[in-house]
């Protein structure tokens, strides 16, 4: 595998990845999954410093990247916008250059504004990995979701995946749509009208109006988090109505036991998802988290090996 490389030397969005890239990443993840032993480390990133540059709160993505980097023997540093000089008025570019001057080669970036990883990549010689930018992209989440499906079903091609919930504000939805389509899955969307794009066909994903029909159709329900702050903007009449018509219930799954459930987390149980589903056998939420580490190890290894 020494000669194999991703087609781009960074990861900004899911559409940066070709099917060959994804195969490479999945193979590498398989390798790490198979060979990782507690207490042992791989030396793929020995001598490389990875900065976790998070301008937005995150638990799982940040921890997952941090563990992945450490398992590859990288040095990691962490940056939190709330405690940084940004609060003193330092610009984003300045912050980047400051971290760069300390000898960092890779940057795992999360930011509340869309396009920031691309903006930073254009202004650094280091490698940017997008850990979520605004409403734009969250490519590693999409990779770990597809990887989870690949491990569960053996192939993503031809799978019927319905994405449910707050599509319009979701970077997870955007990246999953792009990646799942690259891998040949069929994707549909199910959401209230104010949580869908105005141009309904921009992603070429059919809209399924009722959740019951969606469950009927799908092999996989990918449920999105509903951010409570959406209520304040008046975009939904009430959480109760949302939950009643777009919340995924236990009954949906007792009706169709083979149906697979995924959610990028953190889950609002009782709003978009019935709490009883957390222990349902085909609920892959914890598997997604576990796979996330191996996917990120694979990406860090593939993007960091020549640094």
């Amino acid at each position: 595998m020494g000669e194999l490389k991703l087609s781009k030397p960074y990861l900004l969005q899911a559409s940066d990845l070709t099917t060959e890239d994804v195969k490479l990443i999945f193979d590498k993840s398989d390798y790490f999954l198979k060979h990782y032993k507690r207490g042992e480390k791989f030396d793929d990133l020995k001598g490389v410093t990875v900065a976790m540059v998070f301008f937005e709160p995150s638990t799982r993505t940040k921890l997952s990247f941090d563990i992945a980097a450490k398992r590859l023997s990288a040095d990691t540093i962490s940056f939190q916008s709330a405690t940084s000089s940004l609060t003193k008025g330092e610009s984003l570019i300045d912050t980047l250059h400051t971290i760069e001057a300390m000898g960092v080669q890779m940057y795992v970036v999360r930011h509340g504004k869309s396009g920031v990883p691309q903006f930073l990549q254009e202004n650094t010689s280091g490698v940017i990995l997008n850990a979520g930018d605004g409403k734009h992209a969250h490519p590693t989440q999409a990779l770990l979701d597809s990887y989870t499906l690949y491990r569960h079903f053996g192939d993503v091609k031809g799978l019927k995946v319905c994405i449910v919930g707050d599509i319009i504000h979701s970077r997870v939805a955007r990246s999953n749509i792009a990646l799942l389509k690259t891998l040949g899955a069929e994707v549909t969307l199910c959401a209230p009208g104010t949580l869908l794009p105005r141009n309904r066909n921009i992603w070429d994903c059919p809209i399924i109006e009722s959740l019951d029909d969606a469950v009927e159709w799908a092999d996989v329900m990918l449920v999105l988090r509903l951010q409570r702050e959406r209520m304040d903007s008046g975009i939904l009449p009430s959480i109760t109505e949302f939950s009643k018509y777009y919340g995924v219930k236990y009954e949906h799954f007792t009706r169709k036991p083979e149906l697979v459930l995924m959610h990028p987390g953190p889950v609002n149980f009782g709003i978009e998802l019935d709490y009883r589903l957390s222990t349902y056998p085909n609920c892959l939420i914890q598997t997604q988290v576990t796979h996330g580490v191996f996917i990120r190890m694979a990406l860090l290894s593939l993007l960091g090996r020549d640094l």
Partner: protein
Amino acid sequence: MNLLFNDIRVISPSQKLDTRLNILVKDGFIAEMTSSAINADSQTQIVDSKDLVASPGLFDMHVHFRQPGQEHKETIQTGTDSAANGGFTGVVCMPNTEPAIDDVTVVEYIKSKSKGLLTDVYISAAITKERKGDHITPMIELSDAGVVLFTDDGSAVSRADVMKLAFEYAAPFDYLLSQHCEEHTLTKNFAMNDGALAYKLGLKGYPSIAEEMIVARDLMIALYTGNRRYHPQHISTAGTVQLIRKAKADGQRVTSEAAPHHFILTDDYLTSYDSNYKMNPPLRAKSDVDAIIEGLKDGTIDCIATDHAPHSLHEKHVELENSPNGIIGLETSLGLSLTYLYHAGHLNLNQIIEKMSVNPRKILNLESIEIKVGERANLTIFNPELEWTVNKQLFKSKSQNTPFDKLVLKGKPIYSINNNQYTECNL
């Protein structure tokens, strides 16, 4: 220094003039204009002009010179330097300064800073105090101080009742009311046009209807209050063009302007997340760009105006969504218009000059420029065929926020002449 242009093509649409002549500019006046040879004295610089055009001085009725209040972006001095370098001998500066131009004191301040410059600085004033949209400004006093139009540019007068009052107050004097057309409740936190790409890029969109509903509303109010004069600024959508076209056909006294970026660039450029493509109104779809060009061709759009909006590099070189809106335009406007309208076959040179000089002056009731012996020389000399590469380092503007750097254009300003001064354009 006097200038002799030998065998220059003189185009002055208002005089129905399009012919080759020799012109001697002496002491700020057109001293001679003839087809026979003119003898030049030692004080006269002779310009080989067989490839050049002389037109009435170009006029941009929409610029932001940022003074007073934001002198780090631009000043009246650097703004007019930039204008002259781009071939413009007259501009109208917008009122969104700090403080806003809503009071005679600010008008007098700008006038004092504009004295003795090559480029004439005309002044617009706000429709409402502090551009807050609530109380109309002392329009009569402002007009007496020299203000040529009223607008809250930078934002719209949101309230219909206030706009109606403004039209009514302006009525006895027939002042020109102009509008930055934006329904603000639909554009909160926008970063680009509201289209498929906005959803893909995860950016908040600015729908075309946000512009159109203000245009439609104002056209109704203007008509209702007695067919008042109305000028929507920097129009950007096919729907707006259609609204104005219909209003004109119905005899309404409406005029309009469009900026070069709106007849050249589409919102596809936002995929770069480059803040030099972020402006208000935003870049639109191809169908809108086509409609703007069509509007320029059929006269729906009277003027080309740049919306010259300087911002410093440190303000623009940030996260796209945090970047201020706007790009500079004075030093690329003529080249872009010649390349994308004249050479693209949409407008002839007479029409370009009408849109960039004759019409804006007419809309503002300014004296029309005559190119004839004895008149003050207010001229732009340009080479319509010369190819050049935009180099923002050469700009005289204090800011460099342009998406057109390194673009190859065909057609370039050569001299700006006005107020017994001339600038050799260096671009």
